[in-house]
């Protein structure tokens, strides 16, 4: 809250009141005020809750806090007073005698949605709740009207006795309701419902104006910690009229800890600096109010000299820190950089030799050269093939070994050639042929129905989750059933002829439109928001889809993959989850995401070039140790985000350190986990640390969440101990060498962590080595280092 001192009117150059004239037309209408102080330094304060408000003629209009409510037809004035500032604005109340005709679709459905009556957890659930079923989020108003007015033996609505209508008595808590009291008897919402009942539960007139769009003010505001900001939401209808819907809208935040918003449309900021997006929803129309809470009491940070402006990414992250008034951490040291670089790009920790050579190199461009080496290494190919195979769900359990191997090998070739991303994705979309030889054709061996193919290409290549849209139009999302089946039409009629038990012939004999099930309504086959297909029933329509999807103009395609790469390298997506792009899930740094996407399209979808730019940025190379200034930040990349080694990488790292390979059935000795094409090979380690299950088109199956079994396995697994104690392990070499204790500690530290030991590690190492049994001491120190957080995590 602002202190009294700050609120004195003299602090402001100007104080503005929105709206300038209040017009209330109809008994259920209302107007939210927004009073803003403009400080001399250009900053803005919300004074709505600070100002003293009064209405001259209270028989015409009254106030509920800063909301103006009509009382009767007439004209009066509202006076806003703050200190020495005073201003009046006119109020016109018209059409107040009659409650405007209530329309079921326009008024009642949004009310049921707002009160969450038709939510998936309540009556919107399949089968309803306690015998009363509504369509989820009101996607089927006609059926809901039927359910309310005709079913339930007429007990749900009772125009003669409103209090006995279950819809009213349950929702207001007059009668016990499993879902609790959803609204208060004297609320506007309750009045609306009463009016609908009084008017005889009308469906509503045809041609009733519907909402065209909603608009929130202010759309962007910088706030102080623990302060308030009133929002105003105005809906524009198809007939051009406007209505204040501040109190009828639904508010949700993407960062509760930073800022939340209540049902009155008041944003309350928390104590932390950061950014939040408030999503405002009214009748399926969405707008976003963004708030930035800069670090309080801190001057705008000064850009350090080393944080040069040669990389556009750094400029864009810097802008964000400047807004938030946080400073970045220092650059990470060379050892940390090398390990981070190699793990993220090649899935491999540095060897002791690699690390030593890198640290000894004192040329100024050594980081850039290390990046080039990583990007052309074989391990880069192995590791990224496996990542793409995860997303493509290359699962030998679902498509068999031959198909999985063929698809994996094809993906490997694309990565090895660094083929432009849009080209190989296009090849997948239009894939045709024998799944035994044609790698990408296996995509359709995995995606067997038009619906599955639609969901997968949407999520994997466009970052659009269509799961909800298959069945209903989600109120917070743009895409509905017609969009879903519009896409599904491209895959309808595809053939999969069995050649033998391991192979199919995949082809598309020609376009066949698809209909939305249940309502059985035909839809045009078309890309999202695009024109209908021109393909006929003898032409494969998929090339048209492929061209639309993979073009540089597609607003989703390049952005999704850029965000995916960014998340992989930096630990957090600009949009999070990385493949869930929605209006209601905005990026934390839109300019940066735009830049990455345009860099990718400019380079003709060269994924390595995009990685190169990111890896060379100072932002990627920051230390993970936060400063006092940025310790609370985990979404603007002011320090590097620490992540656990993925399952395959960690297992390979243990094998590399001990020099004892894991054995995989049917694979040559020495095969590493990042090289595996078969995700079904039995491995307790990979299962426990979470390899990707390849059951969904995302990286979500490979979870980094810790479990008890993981901790126990690292501490006690006989399988790991066997490697440590093996005769042919690298530990034997160390034990048999002439290295002194000090040298051993140094060598083990380089092998495990790619850096010289810290003083603590030296102390503990020499304690462990000071046993009579040289080998046992070495084993113990290796064990300790392989269980250390510096080993298990990428810092």
């Amino acid at each position, binding site marked *: 809250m602002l202190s009294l001192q700050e609120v004195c009117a003299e602090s402001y150059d100007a104080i503005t009141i929105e709206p300038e004239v209040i017009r209330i037309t109809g008994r259920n209408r209302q107007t939210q005020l927004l009073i803003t102080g403009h400080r001399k330094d250009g900053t803005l304060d919300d004074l709505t809750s600070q100002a003293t408000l009064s209405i001259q003629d209270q028989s015409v209009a009254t106030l509920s806090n800063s909301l103006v409510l009509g009382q009767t037809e007439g004209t009066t004035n509202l006076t806003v007073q703050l200190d020495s500032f005073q201003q009046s604005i006119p109020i016109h109340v018209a059409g107040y005698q009659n409650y405007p005709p209530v329309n079921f679709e326009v008024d009642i459905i949004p009310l049921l949605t707002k009160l969450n009556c038709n939510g998936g957890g309540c009556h919107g659930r399949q089968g309803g709740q306690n015998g009363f079923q509504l369509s989820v989020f009101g996607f089927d108003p006609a059926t809901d009207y039927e359910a309310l007015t005709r079913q339930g033996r007429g007990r749900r609505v009772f125009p003669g006795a409103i209090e006995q209508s279950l819809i009213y008595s349950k929702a207001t808590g007059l009668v016990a309701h499993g879902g609790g009291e959803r609204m208060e008897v004297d609320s506007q919402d309750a009045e609306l419902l009463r009016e609908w009942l009084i008017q005889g539960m009308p469906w509503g007139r045809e041609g009733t104006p519907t909402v065209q769009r909603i608009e929130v003010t202010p759309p962007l505001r910088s706030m102080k910690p623990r302060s308030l900001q009133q929002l105003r939401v105005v809906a524009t209808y198809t007939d051009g009229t406007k209505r204040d819907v501040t109190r009828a809208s639904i508010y949700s935040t993407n960062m509760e800890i930073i800022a939340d918003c209540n049902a009155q449309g008041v944003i309350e900021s928390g104590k932390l600096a950061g950014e939040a997006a408030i999503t405002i929803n009214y009748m399926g129309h969405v707008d976003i109010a963004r708030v930035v809470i800069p670090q309080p009491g801190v001057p705008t940070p000064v850009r350090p000299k080393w944080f040069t402006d040669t990389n556009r990414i750094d400029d864009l992250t810097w802008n964000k820190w400047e807004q938030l008034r946080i400073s970045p951490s220092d650059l990470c040291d060379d050892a940390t950089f090398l390990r981070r670089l190699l793990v993220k790009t090649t899935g491999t920790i540095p060897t002791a030799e690699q690390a030593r050579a890198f640290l000894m190199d004192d040329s100024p461009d050594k980081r850039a050269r290390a990046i080039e080496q990583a990007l052309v290494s074989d391990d880069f190919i192995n590791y990224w093939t496996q990542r793409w195979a995860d997303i493509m769900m290359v699962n030998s359990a679902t498509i068999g070994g031959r198909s999985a191997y063929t698809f994996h090998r094809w993906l490997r070739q694309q990565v090895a050639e660094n083929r432009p991303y849009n080209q190989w994705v296009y090849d997948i979309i239009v894939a045709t042929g024998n799944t035994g030889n044609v790698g990408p054709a296996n995509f359709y061996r995995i995606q067997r129905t038009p619906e599955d193919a639609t969901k997968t290409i949407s999520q994997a290549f466009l970052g659009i989750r269509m799961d909800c849209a298959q069945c209903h139009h989600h109120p917070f999302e743009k895409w509905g059933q017609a969009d879903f089946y519009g896409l599904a039409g491209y895959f309808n009629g595809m053939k999969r002829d069995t050649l033998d038990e391991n192979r199919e012939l995949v082809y598309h004999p020609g376009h066949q439109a698809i209909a939305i099930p249940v309502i059985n309504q035909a839809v045009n086959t078309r890309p999202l928001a695009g024109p209908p297909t021109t393909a006929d029933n003898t032409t494969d329509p998929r090339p048209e889809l492929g061209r639309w999807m993979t073009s540089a103009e597609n607003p989703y395609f390049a952005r999704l993959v850029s965000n995916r790469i960014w998340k992989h390298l930096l630990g957090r997506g600009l949009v999070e989850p990385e493949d869930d792009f929605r209006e209601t899930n905005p990026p934390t740094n839109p300019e940066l995401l735009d830049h990455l996407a345009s860099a990718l399209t400019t380079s003709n979808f060269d994924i390595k070039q995009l990685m190169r730019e990111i890896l060379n940025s100072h932002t990627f190379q920051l230390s993970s140790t936060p400063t006092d200034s940025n310790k609370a930040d985990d979404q603007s990349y002011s320090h590097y985000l620490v992540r656990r080694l993925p399952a395959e990488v960690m297992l390979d790292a243990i094998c590399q350190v001990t020099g004892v390979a894991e054995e995989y059935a049917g694979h040559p000795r020495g095969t590493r986990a990042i090289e595996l094409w078969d995700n079904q090979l039995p491995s307790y380690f990979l299962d426990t640390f979470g390899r990707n299950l390849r059951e969904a088109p995302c990286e979500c199956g490979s979870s980094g969440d810790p479990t*008890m079994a993981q901790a126990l396995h690292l501490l006690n697994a006989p399988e790991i101990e066997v490697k440590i104690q093996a005769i042919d392990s690298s530990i034997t070499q160390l034990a048999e060498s002439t290295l002194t204790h000090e040298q051993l500690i140094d060598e083990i530290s380089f092998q495990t962590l790619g850096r010289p030991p810290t003083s603590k590690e030296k102390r503990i190492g020499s304690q462990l080595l000071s046993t009579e049994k040289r080998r046992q001491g070495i084993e113990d120190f290796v064990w300790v280092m392989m269980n250390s957080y510096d080993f298990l995590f990428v810092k």
Partner: protein
Amino acid sequence: MLNHSKSNRRDFIRMGSIAGLGIADIMRMQHLYASEQSSRSDINCIFLFIVGGMPHQDMWDLKPEAPSEIRGDFHKISTNVPGIQISDVIPQCATVMDKMAILRGMTHQDSDHGRGFHVMMSGKKAGAGDFNGNQNNNQHPCIGSMVSHLGSPGVLPPYISLPNFLNSGGPSFLGPAHGPFVIDSDPAAPDFSVRDIALPTSVATRRGQLRQLALKQINQLEEDAEKVSKQVKSFDTFYEKAYGLMSSKEAREAFDISKEPEALREAYGMTSIGQCCLLARRMVEAGSRFVAVENGHWDTHRKNTYSLKDLLCPAFDQAVPALLNDLEQRGMLEKTLVVITTEFGRTPRINPLAGRDHWPNAFSIVMAGGGVKGGQVIGATDKQGAEVTDRPVTPEDMVATILYSMGIDHEKVLHTPLGRPVPTADGGKVVRELFG
């Protein structure tokens, strides 16, 4: 009248408004209800899953009046509760009938093992797809994972599964942290041990302690707590828990079934089901919230009578009464809910191979302890044991009942990573009669 169930709470409120009780009275009653819910939060569950399909008409719900091709070869016997009769193939169970409640009206619609497993493990009907060996419940978390997510943790993992992973026993969208801690070996085997809970044999105890001590120092988080990455902190918690388990003699010994007196082991029976039940008791005793036990090979499509009489029921009939008696003697029965459940029942008519096939329309499950009033039968089936005629109970109801019994809000809504709300028990209702 002071029956602290939710519908009764509502009844009170309704009655309150009629009878003129003041708000304060109602508030007090709601408070009573709330405190009663939380007082259940120390109730743990042993969830015994009979895999293959437990034949209701041969064990819990006999139909002696039916023609021979339906009634089968077993006979009714009296139990220690007057008026309740069960099968002569499980005579020892008849001696603990006073502790058990039989739900004879179980019903659902899936006659496939994988799908039956899914609905009985999670309370959620399986959607499209193959559910056999479903590791990560693609539809809904199983009960154990929900307990792990919603309940309060202890030294032992909150959800343990033995002697293997149970089909559809996965966490689904709740994530791997809420998957089961799987004891992947049979406690009846002579070389039984639980993996990774103790040092490997090649590392002597003292040496292991030295290593741990060194590791603790290396991993000591020296930075200001606010600056330590959440990921590291979270792993640190699990290392702490692992140390806790390894260093707590009680916790570690809970896994060591050889600590039980030989006589008690014999009383449970030296069988998989016997030793699993005993180990499960040790787990809940040491603080695990939910222990799922699998007992297999009940899919009697052939030679039903022989299989039950000679192969399956003897071990079952020894283990179950031993568990209930043991829990009672230790004063744990009131705090331990025992559920004996299955994918489905078996067909009324005996098939040409002298077996019975899958029958989800009507079957029986059993509950005991954890506040369940024993010595009662809830629900009934028709003369052939084919359809439920009284008090049907769905898998959703079963899940709601288990969660309720454990002091967990069964009406709570979970959220998937997509933000989709999913009710825990999918609208299931608590079987109030169970709790007297």
